Each structure stands twice: as structure tokens, then as C-alpha cells.
């Protein structure tokens, strides 16, 4: 709940320890949907291609590659049929990490947790020759207009990374992320949806505490056919402010993002309503997701990252 102690990772090893990375190497991202890839990869495609897996036959037409004529059928039926095979294609794995100020809260930090999860998924994606695209919700101050103090620009995404050798890029991009400021989830989702970088698995890591709502953004993303996986990260202090001794008494809360103030007296009725409100909010998100076939899980930032990846994600079939 409260602003977290800044923890800037310098390398990927600061986010994921080597033992975990070695275990992650054996995992791959699965998708409940089959997407067409752009390049040959390690994944079956809807498209017919040059894999070893038979798909179907079709009549030969002029111009077809005669290497794929099924001569056994020609012998039996005296007609030319082409033997089509499923193509092996790569998977597009989009990772969208929330870098707004709200994520820079909690103990342990929600953002650090989100960084760890994003780095792990990026690593898995790269290792498995998936096309990994890293995106962030949030703005950074434009350097050229820093003096003005007002000019903000969106964080530049890192697109279409493939193969282990791009780990360095991921590391650099990830370590450069600095939580803070505001961000527009809907706008970011809209931009991603319009970028036509290819459909695939989209992992969104955020607390989803957006004052202007998360619904439209998720509609953008799910509408483009992404297999969405949402990880809602909340800090233990957000879940139980009193039990964690985070706050007490008569306080004036200031929103980390927009600076909005809210005066509260932490008495039992208010706490009861807050907890009920939080549960309802999470349930609403969960229901929204289930209605749109979106995989969603809510975790606390004090959850060990290996538990998330090796346990929760595998159980939910996101990783295998």
C-alpha cells in the first residue's frame, strides 16, 4: 500500500536467480488458441507448411509444388492430390507490464514482483523461440522536453525478440524501467491492439487499480484475438491494511499516481467496507475475464516468484 523502497535491478540475475532460470528453460508458454506465426518456429500452425505432421489432402492445381503430390493416392485413384502438412510456426508472446506509480507500492514491491514475472516469461519465450514483445503501461518524461516538465511519452516497446541472444535486450529494457507517474491502460491496450504485431499470448501484469477502468483496455486486447493471461498483483498491505500495521488512525491518503487526497479514519466500519470493496473489485475483474475466456489470477506481491511460475502458472496451463 505504501510507497515501496526503491529496488532497481541491474541485471536479469537480480530478478531471477540462475537456479530458477535453469528450471524455467524447461518450460514453454502454451496457448489455448493456435495462432499463425510469421516465421517458422517450434509450434504447429494453422497454416499448411513443412512440418512432418499431416494435415489434409487437396486436389492438385497447376502451379503446385509437385514434391507434395501423394503418389499413393494417384496410384489408387488415378488422380493428383497434394498432401498437405501442418506448418511449424513461432508464438507471439506479448508481455505488458504496469509501470505506473501504483505498482511502486507495497512491501515487497508490486513492481519488483511484476518485473520478476515479466522477466521470467520473456526468458521462457526467448528460450522457446517465441516472438517476444515487451510493452509497458506508463509514461516516461521525454528527455528533450525535460525542462518543460510536462511532456510525457509512452515507454518504447521492445518488439519481436526471438532467440536467447535477445536476452540482453530484454535485460536492458527491463532494468531501465522505472515505476512512477501515471499511465493509461486503455490507451496502451488500444495501441497494442492496433499495432498488428500478430496475435498470440498476451501476459498483462498489473494491479488493475485503474480509476478510468480496465474493461475497455481488456476489450481491445481480447478483441484482437490475444490469448490473454492477467496477473493481478496486490501488495499484502493493500489486502489487509490494519493486519499488516501499515496504517492507523486519522489519515489523509494521497494517491501515488494522480495525487488525489482522501481523508479516512481507520475505524472498523471503514475497514469492513474497504475489504468488501476490494473483494468485489477483484471478483468483478475475475468475472469479466471468465466471460471473455481470459486467464486471470490474483496474487500478492509476497508470493515467491517460483511458486507463481512453477506452481500456479503450470496448474493453470499457461506454462508447461
Amino acid at each position, binding site marked *: 500500500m*505504501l510507497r515501496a523502497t526503491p529496488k532497481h535491478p541491474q541485471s536479469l540475475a537480480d530478478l531471477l536467480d540462475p537456479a530458477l532460470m535453469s528450471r524455467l528453460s524447461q518450460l514453454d508458454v502454451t496457448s489455448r488458441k493456435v495462432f499463425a506465426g510469421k516465421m517458422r518456429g517450434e509450434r504447429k500452425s494453422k497454416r499448411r507448411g513443412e512440418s512432418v505432421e499431416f494435415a489434409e489432402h487437396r486436389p492438385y492445381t497447376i502451379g503446385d509444388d509437385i514434391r507434395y503430390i501423394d503418389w499413393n493416392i494417384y496410384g489408387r485413384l488415378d488422380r493428383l492430390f497434394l498432401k498437405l502438412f501442418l506448418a511449424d510456426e513461432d508464438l507471439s508472446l506479448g508481455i505488458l507490464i504496469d509501470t505506473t506509480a501504483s505498482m511502486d507500492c507495497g512491501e515487497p514491491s508490486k513492481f519488483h514482483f511484476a518485473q520478476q514475472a515479466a522477466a521470467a516469461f520473456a526468458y521462457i519465450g526467448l528460450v522457446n523461440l517465441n516472438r517476444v514483445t515487451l510493452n509497458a503501461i506508463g509514461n516516461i518524461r521525454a528527455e528533450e522536453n525535460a525542462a518543460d516538465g510536462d511532456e510525457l511519452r509512452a515507454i518504447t516497446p521492445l518488439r519481436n525478440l526471438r532467440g536467447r541472444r535477445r536476452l540482453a535486450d530484454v535485460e536492458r529494457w527491463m532494468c531501465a524501467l522505472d515505476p512512477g507517474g501515471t499511465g493509461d491502460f486503455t490507451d496502451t491496450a488500444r495501441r497494442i491492439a492496433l499495432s498488428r504485431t500478430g496475435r498470440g499470448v498476451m501476459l498483462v501484469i498489473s494491479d488493475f*487499480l*485503474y480509476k478510468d477502468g480496465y474493461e475497455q483496455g481488456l476489450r481491445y486486447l481480447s478483441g484482437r484475438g490475444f490469448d490473454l493471461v492477467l496477473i493481478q498483483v496486490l501488495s499484502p498491505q493493500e489486502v489487509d491494511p490494519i493486519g499488516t500495521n501499515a496504517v*492507523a488512525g*486519522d489519515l489523509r491518503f494521497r*494517491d501515488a499516481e494522480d495525487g488525489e487526497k*482522501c481523508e479516512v479514519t481507520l*475505524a472498523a466500519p471503514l*475497514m469492513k467496507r474497504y475489504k468488501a470493496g476490494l473483494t468485489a*473489485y477483484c471478483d468483478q475483474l475475475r468475472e469479466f475475464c471468465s466471460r471473455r475466456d481470459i486467464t486471470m489470477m490474483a496474487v500478492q506481491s509476497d508470493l515467491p516468484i517460483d511458486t507463481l511460475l512453477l506452481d500456479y502458472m503450470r496448474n493453470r496451463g499457461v506454462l508447461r
Partner: protein
Amino acid sequence: MTWLTPGLAGVIAAIAVPLLVLLYFLKLRRREVEISSTLLWAKSIKDLQANAPFQKLRRNLLLFLQLLILALMLLALAQPQWSGAAGSGAASVIMIDRSASMATLDAQSESGESITRLERAKREAIAFVDRMPERSLLSSGGPGQAMVIAFDGDAEVIQPYTSNKALLRDRITNIRATDSPTSMTAAMQLAAPYVRPRNVEGQGLRPGDAIVMWSDGNVRDLDTVRLHPESLFDYHAVGRVGTHNVGITALRAERPFDDPERAQVFVALEHNGTDPIDVDVQLEIDGRVDGVQQIRLPGADPVNKQAGLGGVVFRLERSTSVLVRIVILTPDALAADNAADLVLPPSRRLRVALVGEDTLFLDAALSRLGLAQYDVMTPTQFMKKAKHGAIDDIDVAVLSAWRPDAEELDPSGGLPALARGGRYLIFGAIPPLPGVRALNIEGEPKPTFIITSQREHPVFRHSPIDELEIFKPIAFTASEQVRVLARSTDGPIVIEAMGGDVRAIVLGFDPAETTWVFRPTFPVFLAAAVRYLGELSDTGDELGETGLHPGETLSMILPRGAKSVRLTIPASPTSGAGKRDVSLELTPDGRVNFGPLRTGGLYELSWAGPAGPSDVERNGRAVRIIPANMTNRDETLIDVRDTVTLPTGAVTAQPAEATLTATRTWPWLLLGALVIVMLEWWIYNRRVYV
């Protein structure tokens, strides 16, 4: 419940309570905390504060406690007191009855201990003073003021108007009971400037200050309390209903005409109980017990308001002067009326001289009185004897239509000295005595008749002369120095006068000029008057009467040459005062005055110089014993009256129990506030969330 300073508390409450709530609204001391998002908090607060701005304050324990503290402090500031009756206005005249009946031991203290009615009255009055509004900067009425008047037969301003409660409490505490009767007249005279209706411009007559009276209600002259109909008269009755008391209500002694060696002492007893009661009455002579008699007094009749009345007669054979003391041995609630004293003078057969020209009727009556010596002489013979000093063997001289030309005898113009100074019964002449002056009226005097007479006076006790027609009255004036015994339509007609050692009863007519001489009351009057004058003591008292009474003033003439006069006041069991001596100044006419007497008992007047005939000599000083007995049936019948009747209406007693239980509660309220402050501090530090 009484509020001593409600105005101040109200004003401060009007300021402090909204201020405290406002401070809570402003929440000036809120700590600012940055959180991830106010999204859920704002929603929760909106739900909580849905329709009421004061929802912010709901279940805020600290604010609740602070409001509670503030409320307690404000209540303390208003100085509440638990009591039955409120303090009555800005100015009150506190009247406390300190008469004899108030010494009755039938009241109760807060702890249930038996105390006298006066003690109880004082405690209630002090509680009343405590409840008076305090001085306050903001209240328009100012502090409550009170003056204290203690009254019995007389009245005394114990404390003039003040708002100093400590002073009032001190003065009230020092009020002592007396053995005097009860009278409101003097008290009302003292209070009159404050309590009588005031003429306020534009409003007409407005009520004066309130009267708050503590008494047992045995006040005879409440009709003197002239108040505005709207005036507040608070009556607080003290004492318990149904307390029984037996007391001596009359005491007198007589020596029979024919056998003056013997004496009879008559004691009248009364009691207020409804059941008959056996009473032991003891006679003491010169301090030694001479006899005890038991008498059964009947029960009082409350319906007809008649007390249980009885009498005892002691017979004794004493020719000398003795001190007689009657004591009721049966214990009761009031001790002051259980004893009475009288001085029985020595036996004496009177020597009477009748002086006059035409003394037919007087001679006929006097010659049959059985006197020790009876002489009839003409004025010439009398004057001749007087010139030779041969009349000092006459106890009483009866002058018929003649008065001596005394200027030849006495340059001061008095009557000739007889035995013991001179006792005269004068018919149809006005003697040269102080305060009496004959009027010269031309022509024949007009017939008149007597309209009033003092029937309680010994000379008229058995022979009333009301409506007696007088054909030739003598007109004269009488000043306050003389006692008027009867009045005619034209003025005083029978007086009792004195000058120097002379005592005289003067009738302004000749009995031969009336029809009186044919009535049986005439010889009765003559006998009573001769006896009265002859046996009149030097104190001016009739033989065997109870002498002075508490509440009266001691005033008597001492023999010529008396000096260094001292009065020994007896110890008073009622007030607790001890025996003490006071020096008295002699007036130019040889009189000493002291009073009013507060205590019953034997007063001893002593002086250096010659003793009178009835005085004794002790240690070279002349001593005169003067008994002062309560003998007052109004004080003996100690029933408590719940209602007293004023000219403006009946006043019912305030409940006395409630008034005494007035207790200050503000210290407890402050203590409560302190406890809550500590509780709040503890909650604040322990972060106890509710």
C-alpha cells in the same frame, strides 16, 4: 437539581462544542500517507458517508470521549447540585427560628443522629446558602445574596446582605438557641425594607426579596408578615411530627390572707401527646428536694386543638423568703420547660390606711379584708403624720378623692414615703407621678364609660370593670412611663404608675360617682388591688408570679446608693453558654436595664450598697434573685406545623429532607472528566481500534 452558574456553562458550551466538532471536521492533525490508489478507499468512504455529513464522526471513539469530557467539564462549570428545591432568586432573607421550641431534640442529621431542630435548621440553611447562584462574569443576575435574621421573641440581624457564602455559613453556624417565645413581628420589622413590595416605575408594586424561613411553625403573629401576593415565602418545617413534650406552663404561689405563714405553689402542666401520661413533679426549696407528686395528664385533643392540661399544688409552711424550684422528672424532648423557679417572699399581713373625707363605700369594703392593721384618717391627719414621719408603718395607703400636697414634704414632688417606699391606691385624684398629668377641663365633666381593661392584670383578674359607667371622670394624660389598665371613651381612666420607690394604682374617678360600689366586683377589686400593691415585690412583680420570662427585658429600680451593679447570667443548657457576669450601668433614676433575656433560670443582680427589704446580703454585696421562667404554652406545645398561614395565604412547608441532601456534584464531574481523559490517552496510545 440546582444549577449555580448555568449561564456561564451555557455560553461556553455554545462556543466549545461546535468548536470541537469543527476541529474534528477539519481534522487538522491528519497524517498524510501516500498509497497506491485511493480508488477503493474513496468508494468505501462514499458508501459510509452516503447521506449524512456527520457520518464522518460516527463511531469515532476519541471524539466521543472528548465530547464526553467537554460535557462533564461544562456540567461542572454549571455547578449542579442535587437538591429538592432550587435556590430562590438573587436575594433572600434567611429567617431562622431560635426560640425555645427549636431546642427540641427530635430532628435528625444526615447520619441519623438526633439533633435539635435549630441544628437541623442551621444545616438546611447552610445547604440553601451553598445552592445560591455563584458570582459569574456572564450571568446577568449576579451572585445570590442573602441576609440572615435569627428570631425568637425578639429578632437580630445576624448577617446583613452579602454574597459571601463563607461568611453566611459562619454566621448561621453561630446561631444559638434561646428560651424565648416565638414572634415574627420584630423579624419582619428588620426585614421590611427588603421584603415589602416595591413600587417600580411602570410596573407598579413588585414583590420584594424572598423570605426563606426555618421554623417548627409555632409562630403566633404571622399576620404581621405583610407581603406582596407574589412574594416568595419559603417555609421549611423542622422537627418530627408527633414528638411528645410535657412542660410547666404556669407557676405561681399564694399565701392565704388568713394564714400567711403557709404558702401554696400552683404548677400548671401541659403536654401535647394524645395519650395520657404520668408525670413526676418535684418541688425543691432552696435547692433541697421537698416533695414529689405524680400527676396523670390527659391526652391532648388534636381535633379541638386542646393540649393535655393538668396542675399540681404544693403546700408548704414557710414564713421566710424561699427559692422554690419545680422540676418535671419525666424526660421529654424539650428540657427548657421542665424546670421553673420563683422567689416566695416572706409572709406579711398588710397594714392599710384609708385617707379621705367621704369614705363610706371604701371603708365598708376595706374593713372586712382581715388586715393586720387598718386605720381610717382624714387628709389632715395623714399629712400631719407624714410630716412627723409616722406613716412608715403603712404598707398601702388608699386615698379617696384626695391627693397630698406633697411639695411641702418632698422637694422632688413625690408622694410621701410609706413602708417599702410607698404603695398607693388612689381614687378620684391624679397624684404627682412621672408620666401622669391632670387636664383642666372647664365645666362639668361629661359622663363616660370604660371600654377596655386589662383583664389579665391581677387587679382586674377577678373583677372586670368593662362597661362601667362613670359620671364624673377626671381627665388626665398618661405617657409611656405608666401602664394603662383601663380606658374610657375619653382616654386612660385606670393606670399603674411609679416614681422612685412609689408604686400607685390610680383610678380617675371616685367610686361613689359610679354604680360600681353596688356591684360585687368592687370589694373584690379592692382586695386584689390592696393585696397586689402590698405584696408587690421590689422588682415590680406580683407575689409568686413567675417573674420575668426569657425574651423580656430586665428592668428594675435599685435602692438609693446602689453602685457597681453586676448581673450574673445563668448557664444555658439550651445554647451551651456558661454562667457569666455582666456589669450594668445605673440610670439617673436608679434603674438598671438588661435584655432581652435569652436564657431561662435564676439571674442574680448584685450591687454594692444598701439592700432592699426582699434582698439578701452576700459577701458584702446586696443580691437580688430574679427568676426567668419559660412557662410559655406556645413553646411547650412543640407540634410541628406543616402549614403556616400568612395574610396572603397558607404556605406549606418545603420537604425538609430534600433540602438537606444538597450535595455539590461538580467535583465528581471533574473527576469523571479526568478519568475519561486518561482512558482516551490509553486508547490513543494503545491504538485500540473499534
